[in-house]
């Protein structure tokens, strides 16, 4: 009985889909229909649309990138309230830049550049010892001491996440841009104004430190 019902449901769905496709094809000349439904609107186009007054375009953009940007700040600061504050600041910058926005680079590159610069300003403002100074392409061993990891009470942090948060800032930056921002090493090098080789080294040492940290935690 269930099989019959399933078959009937599948058949009905197939018929409905066929009817929908035929209707769309017949009326394509009347409506601007994008039949390639799998192609989402690009970030750059959404931002341009938002600049023209389309609030829903910003909402889509925000939903796409809010997690990565928030976790970028969270891993760096290790404090949810600070991360949210920085996160909100960045998106207000995006909102205020809507009318003057021009597509000169990928939207995500622009967004994370804003985030990086804002983080640097935050560190300077709060007199933190370590800055995300990517002009200095020193080897990872020469980096400044890591920041103290401040874990907010009540937040369960997996060993892996803890190891990421304990990385030296430059290595952490490269790691987060790759895993939260989805950037390639070339993009990261350009965004952080570093050489490709230095970026690659930082990521390699980051992964090595994480693995060692996890191993030490297990041993």
């Amino acid at each position: 009985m269930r099989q019959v019902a399933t078959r009937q449901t599948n058949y009905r769905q197939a018929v409905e889909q066929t009817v929908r496709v035929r209707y769309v094809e017949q009326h394509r000349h009347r409506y601007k229909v994008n039949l390639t439904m799998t192609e989402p609107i690009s970030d750059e186009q959404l931002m341009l649309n938002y600049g023209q007054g389309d609030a829903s375009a910003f909402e889509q953009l925000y939903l796409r990138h809010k997690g990565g940007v928030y976790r970028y700040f969270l891993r760096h600061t290790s404090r949810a309230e600070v991360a949210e504050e920085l996160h909100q600041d960045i998106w207000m910058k995006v909102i205020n830049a809507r009318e003057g926005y021009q597509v000169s680079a990928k939207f995500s590159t622009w967004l994370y550049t804003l985030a990086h610069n804002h983080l640097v300003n935050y560190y300077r403002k709060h007199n933190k010892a370590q800055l995300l100074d990517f002009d200095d392409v020193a080897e990872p061993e020469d980096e400044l001491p890591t920041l103290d990891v401040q874990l907010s009470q009540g937040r369960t942090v997996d060993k892996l996440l803890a190891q990421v948060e304990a990385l030296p800032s430059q290595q952490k930056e490269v790691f987060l841009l790759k895993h939260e921002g989805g950037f390639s090493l070339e993009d990261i090098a350009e965004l952080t104004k570093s050489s490709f080789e230095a970026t690659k080294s930082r990521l390699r040492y980051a992964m090595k430190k994480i693995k060692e940290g996890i191993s030490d935690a297990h041993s």
Partner: protein
Amino acid sequence: MPTHERSDSNISQDYQSLSKEQPSQACDNAILAASRRAVSSKPKAVNKSSWKNMPYLSAIAASLFVVVVMFAQQQQDTPDTPAIAPEAAVAPMSAILVEDSAPQLMRSTKKMSAPVSTVSGKLAQQGQQWFLITAQQSYLLENVPADIAQWSQQTVSVSGAQKMIDDQVVILVEQIQQP
């Protein structure tokens, strides 16, 4: 697989699966509300690019321009009686001066319309209009037959009622024949 033997890709995958934190709902609401306020409160400034978003305005402007030009052309085409070039070319020619040769029922030149009259002169076309050019004046022909073109630049007799329209004598053509 023991943790210490994890490859980079394993680390990446594990991180992706664990890293799920999101900003709070309050934070989301505040940002989205600000984004909506930004586009709803501030009136859109008129700038140069706004014209690019209103292509129909340029189409309307172009249409108006065409209408004005056509109207001006029509005004120009409406002849001042002594200024028509064919008249100057025609005036001294003897063929024009045969007004009296054709049989006429009634002749009227400048006065208001009379019953059907016949006037002889040379047919000339200007634009879409036909004129009968005589030594004294030119007559605008209306209700011309479809085959009037065969009489172009010929001396003919035109029969029809005459009337005055804006200082222009108009003949409602009933018949065209050779004098």
